[in-house]
């Protein structure tokens, strides 16, 4: 079996010119007689490092990875748009690259003329374009507008036409870079059908995408790039799983860092927690927004008299480990560490869950739960245990507070804790009840994931 795409130890180093370089001119290059030397970079950025991949003919390879991991660079190498700095790239067969749709469309002339020119640019002859013209226009769903200048097209029409031309080039190797977001659902399905047809006809496809579901469903193999290196390759399900785990871990770190920062800035404006709490008994709660200029964080803050202090809040997942990323439906414990320097008997512990839009998803406190406070002294811990985190995917924030029954705040932490709920299904709304679909009568479905 021959390989359609072969990369051997391919590396790509981009030049990254320092500031000085931008002001270097022809004059200086000529004066120092170093035209060639001056074109040498001051700094370099390695986009790909020793990537070795081979895709057998007729296979579909999905490339996944975070932004900036080198996916598009790899695609450009395969497309021949840029050359590898070292290593080799070999491609057997005619390539069509769906990288930038409609690149080279001229806005002033009609869609019809652009189809011809674009087709010729992509390697067809005039006659071949003429043969496929009707098919292209039909695929793009632009029959009525094909004679209008392209500048009057909407961006969707523009992309659709670009996609239609590129896909009708009839390549042996198709390179796709995240281009399926070009139309409505119907058009996306048409594109997927077209890809499936390509697959059936034994064409090789290299697919760069963030749509992991597509990789799982559609690709024979997956390649995971991270910071320009191959981090894994093989069975799509396994690679996607590993990638997701990695993404969660990263998010975990980011959320933890973000929370720490928010708390830090919230406590700057308030009195030192080491002072006896009884010494500070303000009439008004000290409101501490972290800075009015920062609109997104303006509502976060911490205030209160500190007669009772919340010293730590941890979110604990089903594995018993503290974390910030949870799966929908998992149990989650909110552990609230408190400290009361002097014993208090009038206190309520409360909690609120907000989604990213600031909508309160749920809120409760010990008083609502009909628990009457009796005594809190020294160090104590309260755990709010959620049996099942039935929320849709998204980022959520927590309010945690200890206050008097009449609302007088001891320590109010406003939106200082962030956690993320992960879910592969893209349900909408906030609440995600546990559910399943059942059917009776003459109705059948097929699982799309199969």
């Amino acid at each position, binding site marked *: 079996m021959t390989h359609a795409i072969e990369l051997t130890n391919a590396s790509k180093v*981009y*030049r990254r010119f320092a500031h000085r370089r931008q002001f270097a*001119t*022809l*004059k200086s*290059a000529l004066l120092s007689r170093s035209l060639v030397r001056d*074109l040498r970079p001051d700094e370099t950025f390695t986009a790909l490092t020793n990537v070795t991949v081979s895709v057998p003919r007729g296979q579909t390879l999905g490339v996944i990875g975070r932004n900036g991991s080198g996916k598009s660079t790899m695609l*450009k190498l395969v*497309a*021949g*748009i*840029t*050359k590898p700095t070292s290593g080799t790239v070999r491609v057997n067969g005619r*390539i069509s*690259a769906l*990288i*930038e749709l409609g*690149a*080279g469309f*001229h806005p*002033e*002339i009609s869609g019809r*003329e652009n189809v*011809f*020119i674009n087709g*010729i*640019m*992509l390697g067809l*002859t*005039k006659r071949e374009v003429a043969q496929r013209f009707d098919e292209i226009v039909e695929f793009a769903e632009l029959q009525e507008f094909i004679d209008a*200048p392209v500048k009057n097209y909407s961006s969707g029409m523009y992309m659709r036409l670009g996609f239609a031309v590129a896909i009708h080039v009839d390549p042996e190797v198709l390179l796709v870079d995240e281009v399926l977001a070009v139309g409505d659902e119907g058009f996306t399905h048409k594109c997927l059908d077209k890809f499936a047809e390509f697959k059936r006809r034994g064409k090789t496809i290299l697919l760069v995408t963030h749509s992991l579901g597509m990789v799982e469903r559609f690709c024979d193999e997956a390649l995971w790039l991270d910071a320009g290196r191959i981090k894994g390759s093989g069975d799509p399900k396994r690679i996607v799983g590993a990638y997701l785990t990695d993404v969660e871990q990263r998010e975990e770190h980011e959320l933890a860092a973000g929370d720490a920062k928010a708390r830090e800035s919230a406590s700057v404006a308030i009195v030192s927690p080491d002072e006896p709490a009884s010494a500070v008994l303000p009439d008004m709660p000290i409101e501490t927004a972290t800075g009015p200029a920062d609109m997104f964080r303006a509502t976060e803050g911490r205030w209160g008299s500190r007669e009772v202090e919340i010293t730590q809040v941890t979110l604990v997942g089903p594995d018993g480990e503290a974390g910030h990323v949870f799966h929908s439906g998992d149990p989650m414990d909110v552990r609230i560490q408190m400290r009361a320097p002097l014993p208090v008997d009038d206190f309520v512990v409360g909690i609120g869950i907000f989604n990213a839009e600031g909508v309160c998803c749920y809120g409760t406190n010990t008083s609502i739960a009909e628990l009457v406070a009796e005594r809190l002294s020294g160090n104590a811990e309260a755990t709010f245990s959620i049996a099942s985190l039935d929320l849709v995917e998204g980022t959520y924030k927590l309010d945690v507070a200890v206050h008097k029954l009449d609302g007088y705040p001891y320590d109010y932490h406003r939106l200082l804790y962030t956690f993320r709920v992960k879910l592969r299904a893209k349900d909408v709304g906030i609440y995600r009840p546990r559910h399943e679909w059942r059917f009776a009568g003459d109705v059948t479905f097929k699982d799309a994931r199969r």
Partner: protein
Amino acid sequence: MLHNLAQLPRYRGLIQSLVARELKARYRGSVLGFFWSFVNPLLLLLVYSIVFAYIMPARFTGGEEPKPFADAYPYGVFLFCGLLPWTWFASTLNESAGVLISGGNLIKKVLFPAEVLPIVTALANMVHFFFGLPILVLFLIYYGAPITFGELVWFPVIVLVQLILTMGLGLLVAALTVHFRDIRDILANVLTLWFFATPIIYPWQHAPDLGKWFLNLNPFTHLAISYQEVLFFRGPFGHWRWLLAMAVVSIGFFLFAYFVFDRLRDTFAEEV
């Protein structure tokens, strides 16, 4: 390099359709549309004729100069013989300076032979030059210019030499401008200087001796003189030796320019 150069004929379909697109797109949306291709040179001719016939009358009274074909020296027509090809030359270079940058989308996102872009620019401007020719011919006929078949045979040769020279310079300018954007600004001024350093608004014979020596170093001098001799001046085409020498120089220069372009090719996708 030679391998890439040999590929060039394969792109003729592409070049052809891009030139056609360039021409179509240029006047799309204007009222006169394609007529501008004729009106533009006419207006240009009018402006220069008024300036040099009435505002700053050009006085040519040298004894050595070849005799114009009519007693009344139709200065405007003389001027036009050099101006029309110059317009082709100058606008090609001006447009070439930006052609890779404005076509950046193609170079970065599509596997596209970059040299096609400056070549298309040169050819599209050549077509405009052709559109201007009927105007020139009308004037030549009106003044009863003595064009003979023997002279006219040289005309395509001159055009070809100019095309090769223009494409060569266009390639060089296009490739270098990607790295040195300053060229765009420098170029406009260089072209103005170049225009006056070429016997277009004055006959070569009117230059002082030292000036003549310098003028001979200017490749466009020989093209301008050739056009003028073939179309305007009476008598046989005496400049052909220079023209043939220019042909050799132009081909050599084109190869050199293509070499530079080819060497820089891989940097375009990253720099534009």
